[in-house]
């Protein structure tokens, strides 16, 4: 008897996870056999227990699990600017991403429509887009800080600028590639340009637009971590950097995991939306 493919895949996934966790556990357990003796006492004092006792500085999966559990039990505590719950930090990052992303949607989709419908505008804007698109979003940061004078808004701006391009280009492409025959259907039915845009072009281009939106949310989530490391204060990116400064590798690993899971949730949400507007041809 063969199990269904999905079930077999699940079993294999779990097996890989177990192997990985075991290997991790074993690797972090075996510390050096007592290097404490050879170490300068000053340095040992500075580095703390791990070095003096020969224990690996790398936390094992059990430590990480314990910390994650701790964060999950109390995600929203706030004990001053340098000690906030993981939930709060995540909410800050998510808020910035969604705000910058929403602004980008508001600009990119209508502008993409315009570019897709008008060859003139498309050609006129092309050089600007070509130059602006490859700029690393973080390169805008100093300019944003200087002009906006607010680090949080600057981070939102950076998210905005990095999510605009994939959506803009995909919308323009999707709109320009709408099949002529569908437009002709609308024309022979005397459907006006506004109605045509909403009843023919938008649904026809929706899968392509959603593809752009999905790429954008992925990039935005990548960029927010880096942006928050730069601007500091709050957010998951700041949390990672702060814990690095605290030398809490456990919390860094926890944050990395959380970033990954959140990114997956964002991506899957967009994927679901994308499936909803995709039509079989």
């Amino acid at each position: 008897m063969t199990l269904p493919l999905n079930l077999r895949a699940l079993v294999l996934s779990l097996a890989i996870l177990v192997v990985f966790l075991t290997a991790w556990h074993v690797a972090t357990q075996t510390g050096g056999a007592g290097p404490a003796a050879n170490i300068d006492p000053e340095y040992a004092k500075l580095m703390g227990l791990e070095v003096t006792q020969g224990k690996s500085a790398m936390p094992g999966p059990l430590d990480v699990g314990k910390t994650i559990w701790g964060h999950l039990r109390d995600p929203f505590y706030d004990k001053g600017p340098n000690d906030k719950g993981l939930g709060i930090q995540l909410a800050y990052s998510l808020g910035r991403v969604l705000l910058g992303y929403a602004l980008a949607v508001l600009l990119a989709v209508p502008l993409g429509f315009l570019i897709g419908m008008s060859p003139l505008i498309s050609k006129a804007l092309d050089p600007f887009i070509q130059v602006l698109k490859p700029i690393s979003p973080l390169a805008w940061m100093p300019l944003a800080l200087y002009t906006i004078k607010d680090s949080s808004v600057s981070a939102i701006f950076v998210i905005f600028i990095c999510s605009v391009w994939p959506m803009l280009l995909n919308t323009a492409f999707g709109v320009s590639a709408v099949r002529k025959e569908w437009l002709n259907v609308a024309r022979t039915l005397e459907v006006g340009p506004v109605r045509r845009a909403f009843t023919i072009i938008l649904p026809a281009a929706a899968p392509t637009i959603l593809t752009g939106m999905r790429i954008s949310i992925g990039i935005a989530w990548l960029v927010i971590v880096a942006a928050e490391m730069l601007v500091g204060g709050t957010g998951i990116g700041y949390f990672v950097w702060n814990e690095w400064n605290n030398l809490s590798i456990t919390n860094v690993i926890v944050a990395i995991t959380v970033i990954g899971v959140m990114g997956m949730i964002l991506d899957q949400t967009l994927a679901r939306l994308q499936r909803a507007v995709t039509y079989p041809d």
Partner: protein
Amino acid sequence: MSDRYISIEGIARRYPKAGGGTTTVFEDLWFSMRKGEFVCVIGHSGCGKTTVLNILNGLDAPDDGAAIVDGKAIEGPSLDRAVIFQGHSLLPWRTVLGNVAYAVAAKHRDWPKAKVTAHAMAFIEKVGLKGSELKKPSELSGGMKQRVGIARALSIEPKMMLMDEPFSALDALTRGTLQDEVRRICLETGQTAFMITHDVDEAIYLADRIVLMTNGPQAMIAEIVENPLPRDRIRTEVHHHRDYYAIRNHLIDFLVVRSKSFRDEIPEGYDRRHPPIVRPGADGSGPDAGHKAA
């Protein structure tokens, strides 16, 4: 004026050539249709049949001349003229009902939703798709898709139907059924219809008159063939009619030989404004029998 319900008057269409200069697809084309008449156009690819159709539906405009429907010059697309496209061109994100209702709602903008749905359903039933109204086009066979296209065209109750090889992508059996249906509906509703086809038998079965176009560029209407078969013809018996082979041979001879050679040996007295009218029949002999009638 029902004699010239639709009138094409000296239209020309030219395209700029790639290396400069212009290609004239056709020029000085004259032709008219009566109300309730079914006309087929036959000609080889590239003779401008589709261009003529697009001028009639308003998607294209002639460079010279005018096309007139019911006393009014055609200026752009209109809900008076429904088009059945070669590819079914249904909106794939809408259901069968959604596709037909889209046309109904475009025609009757003030109708409440229930009325639009009821009207659309009536036409979906007419083409025999009741029960499939909630399916998406991707779930339908080629023949069913084209039926939706027909229902959509009929649902706006147009003054005329324009069809661009609507059945060319279908298998012979489905094509036959749909021809029956289009013929039945057109006779029932007194619809004026203009159809492009490559299929000689389709033209003989459906048309009252058949327009023969010579090869492009600079295509001409070589002649207009009157169908000698009775109007109440039945598809399975058409080929037993005594005039059937006369008209069939006439059409095929045209497609094989004369569509090419016509331009070089234009018959004496040929007038672009009044292309010769031919009525091939068993009484005459050979494909050119009936030229006397012109």
